[in-house]
């Protein structure tokens, strides 16, 4: 199954460590935990996204986007 990059936010007041443990069990390969912001980035199988949403302490899960600037020679940036 295809791997997707995701961002996970913690609910207000959720415990970071226990939520991260729950996310790992639900299939998230954790890449970065930003405790002060209550947000985690990582990757998982495409089919696991809904399971991540069900983990206690999770506020939201979104597929990570990419942004692309115009080339340096473009006059509009």
């Amino acid at each position, binding site marked *: 199954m295809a791997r997707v990059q995701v961002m996970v936010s913690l609910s207000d007041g959720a415990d970071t460590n226990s939520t991260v443990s729950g996310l790992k069990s639900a299939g998230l390969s954790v*890449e970065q935990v930003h405790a*002060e912001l209550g*947000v985690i980035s990582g990757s998982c199988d495409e089919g696991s996204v809904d399971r991540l949403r069900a983990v206690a302490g999770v506020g939201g899960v*979104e597929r990570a986007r*990419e942004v692309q*600037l115009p080339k340096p020679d473009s006059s509009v*940036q």
Partner: protein
Amino acid sequence: MASANIGTGSQTTGRYIVLFSQDAGDSGRRELQARLGIEALSASEYSEAAAGEPDSYGPASIMLDELGVSIVNAPPEREEAMVAAVTDPASPIIAVEPERIVYALSELQGLESPTNGSAMPGFSLPSELPHPTPETLAPSAPELTHAHDEFYRGYRAAFLDMVQQLLEQRPRAAATPAAALESMAQVQELGSTWGLQATRAAQSRFLGRNMRIAVLDTGFDLHHPDFAGRRVSTQSFILGESVQDGHGHGTHCIGTACGPVRPASGERRYGVASEAEIFAGKVLNNAGRGGDGGILAGIAWALANRCEIVSMSLGSPVGLGDAHSQIYETVARRAAEKGTLIVAAAGNESSRPGRIACVGHPGNAPSIVAVAALDRMLQAAPFSCGGLNPNGGEVNIAAPGVDVFSSWPMPSRYRSLQGTSMATPCVAGILAQFAEATGLRGFALANHMLHQARRLSPVRDFGWGFVQAP
């Protein structure tokens, strides 16, 4: 009426209507003399002179003390001095307009549209503002003399017009009416860029001292001579790439937000918060590409370093009806509550006038300040996205985003660019000025800045209006 003197369509009458602050008193007349070398007659002196020799009032300048207005006869080359007076807080002159409605009076009396067609580009009024007609004028007016009734009524109409405009603006912004600001289009970028002049950032005494601005972008040219000796903290969130800017975008944005008061080259000033501490976070690679993971890591880094402002000239398009990212909203709210405010570009997907695109991600998050771009004439830039979606999808503020001169990686050194990417760091720099001036942080800082903006219409394109420095 001596219409030959005041012009019947000529665009070079050389007359201007000058509005003084309420408490100006005699200082208004002194200011005219000192700055413009103009001796203004009082209304009675003027009437006497005009009665004796009707044509003689063509070149005269009049001071209407009751109105706090002077009608000034000045050559076009004095425009610059007049604009300088308007932008100087110490000057009692708060607005200048060309004598336009006066010679439109004949049409006005016939109730033709008085507002179409401006006598002089750069001094035009916003067309949607209501304009008074002689019928709507207040009854209390200075005593008028026979043949000059129409003449004075015309000036009074122009004056009320100007007051109308000022009343519709916030008190702080009242000192920079449209006419004066728009005339800056005529002014060369002497000393500082047009954007720094028009936002009053260059005139502000606040330089963002002790403030920290994080610019999350393509990095920074660490060898740029204009930043030699500046304190710069860096972090790359791009695997395998150093923070050294291989694109240029980041260096340009950092220049606008934090460039020096006096560039080493002797170039004009282009940076707003010249004494702010620079945090250059590389979240976009040298090809200008980056993902949410790196951007979030950059925000976390800025927050951990207690940056007051995070400037993000990045984003991706959003469709009509699309919701904002809950994750970015949560992150931005938490950061702002801890004193780190995020500003982001509204996006460049519009092709005005035909197509207006929605404010992009992540600028469409309610807790992120979305910045639109305007040009020297204070018109929305053709590419600038508009507030079409509700619940965060609004434009919050507008800033200079056309012909923006700033730093570029060596050996180029400088470059002029356009885009909401260029407008965003201007707002970031001005926020640093406000943060220094007021001590406010987070949402309180954002709200303060928004309320000081000069209102422009429509709200869809400008939000609270044109950003103005403290």
